[in-house]
């Protein structure tokens, strides 16, 4: 029973609206349609999210982690490659990484700032290459150092550790390969 709607009919209470006239035009169909679509979508989304798909942020995170596990599983070979070598290339690569991620706390001259000095003979968490790699990988959250392992990956951690070891040895006038020996008197 669609009634013919009169368009542009003045309502006639402009005397009570400071002379502003008002039409009583019908709601635009597409506008009303849009309104109903959003309402229906809203109900459908709510029901689907909570009662059909049983979604939640926790479920989404678990799914993403499972996907990542499959997609980026670290091959054994790559793990094996990640070891500390003191080659010129490795040290040069390590320097680039240090400049990007480490200078903010340890200083461009490696003499420390927010984080400790790396050129002296004081090692808070052990001075062997093994200890240094572990410190970089796991961080020292209690002192504000974040774990860099998940960020850089084992290979880059080893490169930057090589850079630190070689610069430290240089500053102290030692042979950098000393640090490669398993810990004895650190």
């Amino acid at each position, binding site marked *: 029973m669609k009634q013919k709607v009169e368009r*542009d009919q003045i309502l006639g209470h402009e005397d*009570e609206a*400071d002379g502003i*006239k008002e039409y009583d*035009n019908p709601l635009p169909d597409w506008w009303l349609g849009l*309104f109903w679509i*959003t309402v229906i979508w809203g109900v459908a*989304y709510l029901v689907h999210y909570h009662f059909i798909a049983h979604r939640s942020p926790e479920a989404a995170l678990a799914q993403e982690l499972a996907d990542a596990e499959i997609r*980026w599983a670290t091959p054994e070979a790559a793990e094996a490659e990640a070891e500390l070598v003191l080659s010129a290339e490795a040290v040069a690569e390590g320097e680039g990484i240090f400049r990007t991620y480490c200078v903010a706390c340890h200083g461009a001259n490696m003499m420390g700032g927010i984080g400790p000095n790396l050129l002296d003979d004081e090692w808070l968490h052990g001075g062997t290459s093994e200890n240094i790699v572990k410190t970089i990988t796991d961080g020292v959250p209690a002192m504000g150092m974040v774990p860099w392992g998940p960020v*850089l990956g084992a290979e880059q951690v080893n490169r930057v550790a090589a850079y630190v070891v070689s610069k430290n040895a240089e500053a102290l006038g030692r042979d950098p390969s000393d640090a490669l020996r398993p810990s004895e008197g650190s």
Partner: protein
Amino acid sequence: MMQDRYADPQTTNWPDLVNPMEYTNPTTVDESVYDDDVVRMFFGATVIWGVVGMLVGVTIALQLAWWPANLGLPWTTFGRLRPLHTNAVIFAFAGNICFTGIYYSMQRLLKTRMWSDRLSRIHFWGWQAIIVAAAITLPLGLTQSKEYAELIWPIDIAIVVIWVIFAVNFFGTLATRKVKHIYVAIWFYISFVITIAVLHVVNSLAIPATLFRSYPVYSGMTDALVQWWYGHNAVGFFLTTPFLGLMYYFLPRAAERPVYSYRLSIVHFWSLVFLYIWTGPHHLLYSGLPDWAQTLGVVFSVMLLAPSWGGMLNGLLTLRGAWHRVRTDPVLKFFVVAVSFYGMSTFEGPMMAIRAVNSLAHFTNWVIGHVHSGALGWVGMMTFGTLYWLVPRLWKRELVYPNMATTHFWLATIGIVLYTVSMWAAGLIEGLMWRAVNERGLLASPAFMDIADRLDPFYGLRLLGGLLYFIGAVMMAWNIYRTVAASRAGAPTPSAATAAS
């Protein structure tokens, strides 16, 4: 050349080049029953605080593009000036234009003087004192650290007192009105007066510890939810509904066309105020807030799209038959762009509230772009249009530099476009860089500075956009100042002489 155009009324396209006497509305018996002094006071405060608030905005935009601009002083660092900027533009600039428009239009719509001149003045001076108190405490670092509700408890109490005084005066005027019908603009004003009172009181509940410090009564997630229930409805009921009220009065008056649809205004008013109040949780997606509450925030935000567009439609369709005047009338130009940006940002908002989009957009500059397309586009342009329309009616004098208003319009419009586009780009870039991973599944840009460096050009572009917008506002202030001065000096309107001949 420009100067000549400004001086020659024959070539200016300023509308209503008529005798100022004709500004009196024919349906009103006697304009002198109205209290326009308080309107002029709020008008002046709007212009002054607008320039101040935007200057602080440009300053902090400069600080993001070039850090030495923070001057190395605690009082002038970004963290303290940013809340000063937001408080100044929202509560001082936008607040004062709402009061300007309400005091001007409600007296005329209800055919009665404000209920109490004394309360009007207490409202005016109290509100300005609150703003001054904010401008002193925020740079000193005195804050309760709730976004858009930073002011410390003594100022919060002053806000309540002044707001209640305003409300008493407002409802007193409504009760003593000389007409039966309550025009749509007044409904929107009512939603502003009531809802802001409720939001402010509930969100600011705190137990004072010292004169400057207090502890909120809420903690943890409850505090966050109350804060964003307040925060989003500050957008809804401080920056949206009173401005829709201004639109419903000033746009049809300026266009001299009937409002498109009374029916649409009823439906979109009730759907808007009903849906808005539930949308706050969309600020807390992927947080510790219970899932069902997050979903409510998403769903109500999406359903808010059509009610918001109802306001835009009623504004734009009211201009049917007046579009040829948009080409020449700067007031209508400002209104058209304002309503268009209202439609644009109320489309963008529901989209950003969808979980998948939010996970990309949240915490990025996209949010800054979104809020400024609403603030500069909708709120700012509505304000400028209203101010320009009011000048000849409040001071019985045409603008001294009518074409400068058109220049202001173009500067502001270009400024908004630069601002929003640069922030969209910056937001998408940082959002994508945050989640990008390399072929080994590690973060592609783990260093904060890698991403921050990429945003530099966009911060520069945003500064330029904000600067253009600010320059336009300064031009408006100068134009209005000169016009008021000329009016007080009794200089005749050049256009009046032209029209009379």
